[in-house]
């Protein structure tokens, strides 16, 4: 008995000692393995920031209480749901996620410009802009009636701040490629006056696209935060402050984001949104999400799979919205691998796969076969490219493989080259995506008929990105999705200069492709550019760094009570400030 007690006390003492030794109580902060950003990891700083911010927002907004604009369209709450959360929240400096950027651009914050249906820029936060004749300078005039939700005025300093952050390497802004033709030195940006800002740049066809994609961030709140600490700053997920049509209200971890209408939104731009509240919910189980849509718990189901669409079509309460989108699915080939180094092999892999059948079956017709990186609705699109050259033909595929030296020498059904290496490759795809899994499995079956052994491998998303994006590029083939920006530019993907960068999955090194990639952005006139784009696309077909699969249409399930919803390639939340619900259905 006494022995046991003694032992227990010893152990307890040990525990206390370790606890005491492990922490220095704040004196020297080099202690634990977790302390990356000391100033934020201290509970105090983050909480204080958010308390202040929230108080300011409440104070500012209280003056608008009771000011209900007279219109029968105003009112109601809408729920949008999808399987993905909004990582990084409203922090545009660090976010890579599509849903996050949609919420930033259309819900909580504002971009300088927006696009209309024809991809032409129209004013938003920027009232107007001028470009010098030689396209080396652009001056934006910003609206003077846009206020941050805590009462501060949005001005040119915010724009300049946003730009400086984006080009700062320490921020690790995910889309730094946006700004390659903007002058990044100290003279690159000049704040002329409170609402005028000027940028220096090098001539380029789509110089304004970065301003469509980047939201302006509040300099008065984030200006002092060191770049390396931006990612974990509570601004993004705990207390965002925007200047857009909706004010952030609440973020319930792993569950929902709530916003409410901004009464101070400029009348010129539409004024206060019709909806009182907008809630974004995260539901990872697709069956549950579909159930919520069909029972009215959720108004908009973002991106149901084609296989799930039948229930939506059958339902009386819900409509299916369908529109072409600027994303495509591909199988990227790592041309650094022995089996995939010869372009004839890659061509054979494409020709040995019946992509049209896959589109018909998997997409239930909601998509088009792709042979290049240009979406069908884009002005540079040429449907004839690759249609015959890469048509489904297993005999042609076999001939290509044989010509490249891959023959089944030992009769096991799989080809080998002269050195005895087997034509056995893995195709990786990310967990949770049924369609990509199906593609990998279908290719496994179809390519086995031409003597190629394919092993599908599921890899967790982040790990997969690492594997394809960083040396040693541990993959053979990967099923991936790619969303193209309006400023079509495959430089990151296929230019040999970028061969060690993140997006150079295939490792393409072709001087003729390089030349096109360099020259294309400089041609401003679309009529002139189109044939050049076609030539470039032909080269891509020849090189086959990817087996381009399809451009899938976007699908969304929308409750019939929701009116005014417009969605197209610009995004789902495009005109959320104009959505409304009839009074009797709120």
């Amino acid at each position, binding site marked *: 008995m006494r022995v046991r007690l003694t032992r227990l006390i010893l152990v307890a003492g040990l525990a206390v000692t370790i606890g005491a030794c492990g922490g220095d109580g704040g004196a020297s902060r080099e202690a634990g393995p977790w302390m990356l950003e000391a100033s934020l990891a201290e509970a105090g700083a983050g909480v204080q920031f958010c308390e202040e911010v929230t108080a300011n927002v409440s104070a500012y907004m209280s003056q608008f209480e009771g000011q209900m604009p007279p219109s029968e369209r105003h009112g109601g709450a809408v729920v949008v749901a999808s399987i993905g959360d909004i990582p990084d929240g409203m922090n545009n400096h660090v976010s890579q996620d599509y849903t996050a950027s949609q919420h930033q651009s259309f819900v909580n914050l504002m971009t300088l410009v927006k696009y209309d249906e024809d991809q032409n820029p129209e004013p938003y936060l920027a009232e107007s802009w001028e470009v010098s004749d030689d396209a080396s300078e652009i001056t934006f005039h910003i609206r003077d009636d846009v206020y941050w939700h805590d009462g501060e005025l949005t001005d040119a300093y915010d724009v300049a701040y946003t730009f400086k952050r984006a080009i700062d390497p320490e921020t690790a802004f995910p889309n730094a490629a946006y700004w390659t033709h903007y002058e990044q030195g100290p003279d690159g940006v000049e704040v002329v006056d409170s609402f005028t800002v000027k940028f220096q740049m090098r001539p380029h066809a789509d110089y304004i696209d970065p301003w469509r994609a980047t939201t302006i961030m509040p300099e008065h709140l984030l200006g002092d935060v060191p770049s390396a600490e931006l990612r974990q700053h509570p601004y993004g997920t705990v207390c965002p402050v925007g200047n857009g049509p909706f004010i952030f209200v609440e973020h319930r971890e792993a569950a929902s984001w709530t916003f409410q209408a901004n009464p101070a939104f400029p009348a010129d731009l539409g004024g206060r949104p019709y909806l009182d509240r907008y809630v974004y919910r995260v539901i990872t189980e697709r*069956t549950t999400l579909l159930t919520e849509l069909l029972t009215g718990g959720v108004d908009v189901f973002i991106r149901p799979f084609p*296989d*799930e669409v039948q229930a939506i079509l059958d339902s009386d309460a819900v409509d299916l919205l369908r529109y072409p989108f600027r994303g495509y699915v591909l199988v990227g080939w790592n041309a650094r691998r022995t089996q995939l180094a010869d372009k004839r092999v890659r061509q054979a892999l494409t020709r040995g796969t019946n992509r049209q059948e896959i589109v018909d*079956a998997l997409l239930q017709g909601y998509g088009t076969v792709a042979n290049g990186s240009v979406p069908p609705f884009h002005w540079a699109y040429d449907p004839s490219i690759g249609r015959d050259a890469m048509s489904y033909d297993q005999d042609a595929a076999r001939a290509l493989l044989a010509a490249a030296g891959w023959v089944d020498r030992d009769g096991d059904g799989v080809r080998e080259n002269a050195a005895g290496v087997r034509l056995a490759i893995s195709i990786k795809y990310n*967990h949770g995506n*049924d369609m990509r899994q199906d593609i990998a*499995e279908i290719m496994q079956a179809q390519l086995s008929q031409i003597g190629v052994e394919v092993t599908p491998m*599921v890899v967790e998303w982040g790990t997969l990105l690492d594997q394809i994006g960083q040396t040693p590029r541990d993959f053979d083939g990967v099923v991936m999705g790619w969303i193209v920006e309006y400023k079509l530019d495959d430089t990151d993907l296929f230019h040999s200069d970028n061969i060690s960068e993140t997006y150079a999955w295939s490792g393409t090194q072709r001087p003729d492709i390089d030349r096109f990639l360099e020259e294309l952005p400089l041609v401003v006139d679309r009529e002139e550019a189109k044939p050049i784009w076609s030539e470039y696309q032909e080269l891509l077909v020849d090189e086959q760094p990817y087996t381009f699969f399809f451009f899938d249409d976007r699908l969304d399930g929308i409750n019939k009570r929701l009116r005014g919803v417009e969605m197209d390639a610009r995004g789902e939340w495009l005109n959320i400030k104009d959505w409304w619900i009839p009074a009797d259905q709120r």
Partner: protein
Amino acid sequence: MTDRLGPGRRGLALSAVLPGLPQLAVGRWGVGGLGLTVWIAFLAVLLTRWARFAAAWGGPLDHQIASLTVVAGLLGTWGWSMFDVSRPVELDRSGVSQWRLAVQAFKKNRIAVIGAMVVVWVYLIALVTPLIAPYDPAMQGPLPGRLAAPSSEFLLGTDHVARDVFSRLMYGARVSLSIGFVAVGISVTIGTLLGAVAGYLGGWIDTVVMRFVDMVISFPRLVLLIAIVALFDTQSIFLIVAVLGFTQWPGTARIVRGEVLSLREREFVEATRALGFSRRRIIIRHVIPNVLAPVIIAATLGIGNVIVLEAGLSFLGLGLEPPTPSWGSMVADGRDLLLNAWWISTFPGLAIVLTVVAFNLVGDGLRDALDPRLRA
């Protein structure tokens, strides 16, 4: 009613044509039913799948095993039935061992017997699958045929890449059952050894082992499982089986230790000590055989548990790689399609439930049979 038919020409003749029927006729529906159904079914397989059966002998190993099973099943059933019928009726019950009593108690438990029959049937089907599966489980049909409802062509429909669900269900049985079997084998072996050693030797060994057991049991097993599988980042069947096995042994160890503790003081153990046997010999040859009863129960219940866990892992995306069919991965694959292709998920789900229920019935029956206090 006598327990057996006396030897007689009618009994023998009946047995030669329809083994199991004579036993059925006297009310021994468990063994009789099993024997008869196996006989008829395997005969049917032999006759309808003769081509495959004949080709199997030169084919891959599992085909050979399947054919062997058919042959063994037919011969075994026939032989057993003939032997059983021709044996004189036994009246002498003296000197019946503990095991015999348990078996008899078990046989009286109807649903346990049904459970046992189902288990045997599932394993037989799994063994014979290569002969009877209508399609190759990995073979994708023409894509327009995907998500087809059950029909005469595809008994249980097709899945999202046009593979036959019925064939995959049967092949999946093999995978799921093997995982269950091997994982439980690992866990029972380790658990018994460690539990026996800890219980018998006592002292600090006992404390250390039991502390470790407490730790592992306290840990939510699923979280540990998925953490390990995710961290090691591979979906090999070996890792999954190993992890499943290594997280299950503490339960067995605890049970065994308890039994050993009570056994330790019994006379026969003292006798072995007096005889000077080494501790290892005592533990392995004398102690362990006597604690086998709870171990068997734990093992039977454990297999069901492992099958469900494997399904759970697949649900989380940590199961086996495609196109390997396992019931768990089939349920996981079909779960987004429940509304428009319910057959993909539902049939494997039912298979899991049915099999696990059967295992649990057998386990419960064994527990009831081996525990004298509970008999009516």
